[in-house]
């Protein structure tokens, strides 16, 4: 498998250096593994810190900026960051108003962020935490590590980020983040496996005529493997999986997300099918976002995330955001 890299060991540091050059509006600390809003700490504002394994770009570092994250801590590829990163990031962005950790539900992320929270609190930072576990492909039971965090992260980070930007106190930002997290569900589909730089070959075998339904963003297998399906069939399956779990009673935000290797042309076409299913199911769509936002390296495939919103959450979604990957409003 060919990659546009030097050596696997330096991919994350190289990417951070490249990001620093492209985004002078961010402070990128390559050594300490963190990307920080240049104007942080913002006086009186609650800070949001997230992070996770690399390989899901633009998540999380591409979401740092006014209206969204205060800092992101990228780990090695598919490996959660270490507590030191989050502790330093929290110290860098805390204005005294406290810090919300946005944590995707993976054993590694949870353990490292929890350790970081303890250490940061020891240093006098007030820390709240929100867990994102939106992937309905995993049964949330005692027999699993629980649902995985995927596309819902974008909604949590954007909406809670907007609340923080408006000046909401930590408790309220945390409550909003939890509300969003509770109302997000996702389902992912892989058409091809991803290849990590360290391994250099696909992380799982997906024969030519098959796809993986319910894949995770690290190439974790999902519900089942099937013969190739059309865009229409995939949309039916994915949207139904999400809707059956979420059972929305009001309008939703829709994220039609690419896993990294699927062309935007196909993704937009897939969105047409997603919208068709949603309309057939009578679910009103307030806003739709199409693109590669929560990726899995070069994996071909897509995911659908729905987030049920009330007026307040929709207003916060529409609020201005200025980050490398999400940008709107003034």
């Amino acid at each position, binding site marked *: 498998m060919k990659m546009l890299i030097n050596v696997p060991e330096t991919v994350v540091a190289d990417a951070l250096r490249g990001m620093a050059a492209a985004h002078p509006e961010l402070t990128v600390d390559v050594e300490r593994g963190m990307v920080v809003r240049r104007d942080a700490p913002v006086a009186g504002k609650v800070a949001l810190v997230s992070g996770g394994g690399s390989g899901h770009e633009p998540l999380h570092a591409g979401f740092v900026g006014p209206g969204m994250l205060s800092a992101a801590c990228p780990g090695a590829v598919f490996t*959660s960051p270490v507590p030191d990163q989050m502790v330093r990031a929290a110290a860098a962005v805390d204005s005294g108003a406290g810090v919300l950790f946005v944590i995707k539900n993976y054993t590694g992320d949870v353990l490292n962020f929890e350790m970081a929270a303890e250490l940061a609190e020891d240093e006098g930072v007030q820390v709240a935490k929100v867990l994102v576990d939106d992937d309905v492909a995993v049964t949330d039971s005692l027999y699993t590590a629980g649902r995985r965090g995927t596309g819902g992260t974008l909604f949590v980070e954007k909406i809670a980020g907007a609340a923080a930007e408006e000046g909401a106190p930590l408790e309220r930002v945390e409550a909003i983040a939890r509300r969003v997290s509770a109302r997000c569900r996702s389902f992912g589909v892989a058409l091809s496996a991803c290849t990590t730089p360290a391994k250099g070959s696909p992380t799982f075998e997906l024969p030519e005529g098959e796809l993986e339904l319910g894949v995770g963003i690290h190439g974790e297998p999902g519900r089942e493997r099937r013969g190739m399906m059309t865009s229409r069939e995939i949309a039916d399956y994915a949207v139904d999986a999400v809707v059956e779990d979420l059972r929305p009673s009001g309008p939703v935000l829709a994220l039609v997300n690419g896993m990294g290797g699927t062309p935007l042309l196909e993704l937009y076409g897939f969105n047409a099918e997603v919208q068709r299913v949603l309309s057939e199911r009578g679910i009103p769509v307030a806003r739709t976002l199409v693109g590669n936002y929560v990726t899995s390296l070069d994996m071909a495939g897509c995911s659908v995330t729905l987030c049920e919103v009330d007026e307040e959450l929709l207003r916060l979604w529409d609020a201005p955001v200025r980050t490398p990957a999400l940008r709107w409003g003034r």
Partner: protein
Amino acid sequence: MGMGLGMDETFDAGFFVRWLEAAASAVDREAGRLTELDSAIGDADHGANLKRGFAAVAELLAEEPPATPGAVLVSAGRQLISTVGGASGPLYGTLLRRTGKALGEDRRVGRERLAEAFAVGVAAVSQLGGAQVGDKTMLDALTPAAEALRTSFGAARTAAEEGALATVPLQARKGRASYLGERSIGHQDPGATSSALLFAELAETARAEGAA
């Protein structure tokens, strides 16, 4: 065995440094295999994770060798936490840190004392990650190994290896492999495999110094 050394043979900080250096070499050598195992039921990074972490441990210990066995393990554990990430970083870090803490400040410790301390460390791993023996995690190797260490280093090595092998038919209930459900059956757990590697190196280090 024996080699003239009695039951009450004790080990100093240097012994633990040598063990962890040997572990770093072993992890470096076996990184590909660990990642391969993790690729089957995880996310293909366990080898790279531990390689990065144990290299950092070896470097730290070479630069600032602590004076006591406990300090070696605490410092190594902290370094793993600070450099590995993922699930295995906090878990292995906690194992070594809590084992080290349990050893206290003594400059030399015996095998039985070490076995007791390891049991404390293993319990901490179980508490942190919420896993039990049989969940197809590193605990399936660590728990019997800590127990067998009461008998001998060689017994601990064998127990860890058998524990790792015994994960093959299990269905994972913790960590990333749990997402696979039944599909996790038939694969050896990468974390249990690396645990077996650590106990193999412990036994080797002890053997090289004439202990059993």
